[in-house]
């Protein structure tokens, strides 16, 4: 599963998920709900870029 980087520099790591916002560890970026936003800057999912 890939990590994704937000415009603000936050990195979504599927291994960690986003437990503060109800996202369990192991959740792929693609499977995040459509209304999930960056926990740092509030940007929507389409602002994220896949990291290599």
């Amino acid at each position, binding site marked *: 599963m890939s990590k994704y980087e937000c415009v603000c*520099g936050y990195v979504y790591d599927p291994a960690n998920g986003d437990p503060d916002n109800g996202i369990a560890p192991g959740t792929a970026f693609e499977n995040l709900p459509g209304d999930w936003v960056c926990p740092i800057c509030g940007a929507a999912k389409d602002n994220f870029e896949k990291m290599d």
Partner: protein
Amino acid sequence: MYKPIEIADGIYSVGCRDWDIRDFHGYSTYEGTTYNAFLVLGEKNILIDTVKEKFGDELISNISRIIDPQKIDIVISNHTEMDHSGAIPKVLQTIGKDKPLYCSKMGAKNLKSHFNRDFNFKVVGSGDELKVGNRTISFLETRMLHWPDSMFTYLVEGGILFSSDAFGQHYAGDKFFDDEIGDEIIPHARKYYANILLHFSPRVQALLKDVTKMNLKLNMICPDHGIIWRDNPSKIIDCYDKWSKQEPTKKVVVIFDSMWDSTTKMARAITSGIESEDVHVRLMNTRKWHRSDIMTEIIDAGAIAVGSPTLNNSIFPVIADVMTYIKGLRPQNKIAAAFGSYGWSGEAVNILNKEFAEMKLDIIDEGVKVQYVPDENDLNRCFDLGVKIAKTLKERLA
């Protein structure tokens, strides 16, 4: 016209002063502002940042007093916001449209979507260096301080940091340096921090730690607004450290609005209660104080009390304006209480409490509601609320 001044050997401040601006994207600027841009001469000539579009001609004319603008080889954009990028197209049109434009990865994206065109971007990131003759220019990305594109440019020889909006102040005057203006500038820097950077305080803390670790020599900090810190750059660094820690002090800000002055009377009684406990207080009527000035008072307060009458089953619109603004800037470590007069349904206090909860402020009282005009007993309840706020705050600070 702005007299270009040589701030260090071969480095000129060539930006523009905007003496007239009083509303900077919703931030009150009683003393105008400046858009600082810097010309670095050497084997290659470099322009760091530009100005608002409408000052483009003035920028070019300022540069012309030092060198022929066409001799600029490189433009660096530390930040895409239009007060600094607005004149980039004009500059490139003057110096040669294919001259390299250095910026961060997000800078390249954002400049494209501001001007809806491409540029000859040279994308740089933290740690990248550009060597030109005897000058070494290094870059440090500072994402979200305060936009995704924000970065710092650092001149290694001389230890000069071009810090974009960080460490800036909205102040236009005939003073250019900290030693010329003294501590008079600090309230302007504080207002800038409170209104532009407060919600990014955790990132400011992280940046200050990184900069300390990097052991950067900082002889001069050149922000894109206001005066340059050359006499004592550590002063503004220390201020940023203090402001970003958001440590509460023995001070309460009472914020209110009112239609028929019942909530005003309540606000004044609460203020008296706070004062009776020897705690500092500011009473701020939202139709007399600009939201950005209220925000500046809040940063070092340990508590806020907010009062609103009920209007059409809601809070007063000017209070909603100020609350929305405060909420976005995410003040931390504060206690809060609400109050307000109402007629029949009285939703305002509950709405304010809900807002406080969402802001993660510590609500220390359910709040005081008074139907119509407060009587003596009601005013005593308000006084007591003021005492309770002050006492709770003192206990927390003890």
